[in-house]
């Protein structure tokens, strides 16, 4: 099994996702984790894909279909070639990064499961007039507290800036101290900040 991280972006148009995923499906690529969104009119794709070598049990048939052996070593070339037509048609920038097994199995720093009580998830939203340094100031406080960013999105509409993120706070860190620091930097930046629990309740 070989994994790749696929990035693609280009001007938003109807059919980008259909075309990219069709090319990948024809190569027997499996879409694993993915996020796709529009960033300032650019349709942006990031996804982890995996592909099995054709040799061995249960492996997919050769996508070439002409007896050509589908070697793991050239799967990257095959995927890039298959996406080239789509990229040309839609004006996409495409980048394929090889993930080794180790890097794909260890995606983030060590924090434990929230349901074990060893980590608390918080949702932080910040909004106000746009200026340089909002994200870096807010995230700096989060890094200093020992928490890690799990998910983050920003939107700039006219001059209004919105930052929303989920962070994982280890049990030895203080949510109250972090909130106090976040409120302080937010008021220095002239933006408002809200912290709420994002720890799930298991039902």
């Amino acid at each position, binding site marked *: 099994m070989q994994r790749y991280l696929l990035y693609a972006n280009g001007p938003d148009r109807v059919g980008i996702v259909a075309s990219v995923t069709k090319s990948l499906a024809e190569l027997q690529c499996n879409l694993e984790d993915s*996020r796709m*969104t529009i960033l300032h009119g650019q349709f942006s794709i990031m996804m982890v894909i995996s592909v099995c070598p054709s040799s061995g049990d249960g492996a997919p048939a050769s996508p070439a279909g002409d007896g050509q052996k589908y070697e793991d070593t050239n799967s990257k070339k095959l995927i890039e070639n298959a996406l080239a037509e789509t990229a040309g048609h839609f004006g996409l920038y495409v980048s394929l990064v090889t993930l080794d097994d180790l890097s794909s*199995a*260890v*995606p*983030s*720093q*060590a*924090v*434990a*499961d*929230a*349901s074990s009580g060893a*980590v608390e*998830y918080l949702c932080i939203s910040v909004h106000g007039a746009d200026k340089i340094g909002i994200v870096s100031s807010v995230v700096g406080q989060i890094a200093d507290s020992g928490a*890690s960013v*799990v*998910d983050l*999105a920003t939107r700039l509409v006219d001059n209004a800036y919105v930052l929303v993120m*989920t962070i*994982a706070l280890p049990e030895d860190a203080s949510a109250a101290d972090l909130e106090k620091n976040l409120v302080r930097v937010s008021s220095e930046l002239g933006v408002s900040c809200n912290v709420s629990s*994002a*720890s*799930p*309740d*298991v*039902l």
Partner: protein
Amino acid sequence: MSVKRVVTHQEIDKKPALDVQSIDNFCLTLARDLLDTMHASPGCVGLAAPQIGVSVRAFSVNVTGHKKTKTCHGELVLFNPKILSGDAPVTAREGCMSVPELTGDVTRFENLAIAGIGINGEEIKIETDAFEARALQHEIDHLDGLLFLDRLAGPGALHIRKVYK
């Protein structure tokens, strides 16, 4: 005492579960199994019969002591539950024993009235709110073959539960 294995979302029956006709020995055993399995599962506040592989409209709930609980009816086992009314939708993050890797932001009624049959065959009507209302709606969804994954508001409402070591 019979603790059952909680089935995963891949194994769970997606068809609506069946009403019981009366509270017979099968129902009493099912009620015991639901409670035993719930008690044996750390942090578990509710369990629906399809989660232990029984496609029958029954669940157990106990939100006693949970920090988000307001109104609380203690340990409940209910058959053939029906939602009578609900209002004040609230969105919060929930997980499920049958979906161990993911959580999601789901909108549920804050205030809820339901009716069903208790283990002694009696008609039970429950008016509740907050966390107990959320738990009851989550369990009733299981009886309709629905998971919180079916209730997500959008791609931003889906979250990983674990960040791997």
